[in-house]
């Protein structure tokens, strides 16, 4: 008997607010897989931020452009790919933003927390971009959290571009 990969796919118009559809779908799937409430909350935040990046920065809120979200269920992990059609790559080398600089006005951008939150809250994250495909943000959470990588507040999870 053929073995099927369990993949749930969503196609969202790039409209702010619709990221919550992906958030709810991720949470439902993670709950079915047996993730704890805390981990589900982490995942929800990460998926929300990845979808916001795709809607705002990737597809520049062009409602005709879709954000594709693929949720792949594995035995011990859940992988979420968020795909936009962006013409420029996200900067995967982003360090933890400096709140002191932001509060003092030294850094005039008060935004820019999304990638940091993603990296802090999932076990693995990978950013890929090409002119043909746009951006793909791949996030993975494991049912059993890998040592040293889980919930690392410094955002030092492995990733590549």
């Amino acid at each position, binding site marked *: 008997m053929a073995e099927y990969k369990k993949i749930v796919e969503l196609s969202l118009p790039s409209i702010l*607010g619709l990221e919550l559809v992906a958030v709810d779908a991720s949470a439902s799937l993670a709950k079915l897989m047996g993730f704890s409430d805390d981990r589900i*909350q982490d995942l929800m935040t990460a998926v929300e931020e990845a979808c*916001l990046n795709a809607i705002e920065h990737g597809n520049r809120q062009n409602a005709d452009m879709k954000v594709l979200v693929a949720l792949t269920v594995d035995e011990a992990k859940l992988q979420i790919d968020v795909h936009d059609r962006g013409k420029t790559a996200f900067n995967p080398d982003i360090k933890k933003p400096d709140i002191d600089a932001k509060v003092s006005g030294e850094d005039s951008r008060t935004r820019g*927390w*999304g990638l940091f*939150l993603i990296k802090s809250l999932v076990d693995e994250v990978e950013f890929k971009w090409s002119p043909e495909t746009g951006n793909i943000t791949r996030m993975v959470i494991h049912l059993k959290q890998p040592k040293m990588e889980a919930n690392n507040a410094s955002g030092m999870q492995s990733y590549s571009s």
Partner: protein
Amino acid sequence: MRQECRVTVHEDNELTTIEVMGNLTAAAEEAMDTAYQQACRHNTRKILTKFDGESRINSAGIAIMIDLVMESREKRIQIFVSGLSNQNQKIFELVGLTKYVTVVTSEEEVRGS
């Protein structure tokens, strides 16, 4: 499609409360700014930002809170926050906002501070 967020301001002699019902996202920016300007009109020294316990706060919401902290520092106003869910408290700690706002569990805690 934008997410609904209702922001109201309550004032008395000692404390001004900004009550946030719903998600703190980019859609709430104008409402939060208006509420903050209203809160500052009465020479207040303490502002409590009160969340409903179920609000989601995303990165744009974090930026709104940083703006509020920046303005308050200039005006020497103390910012308190209550009603954070566990996840929102975790996010506040991750980004470092807990250095600049005091997280409390009740309004009475602010009044007694």
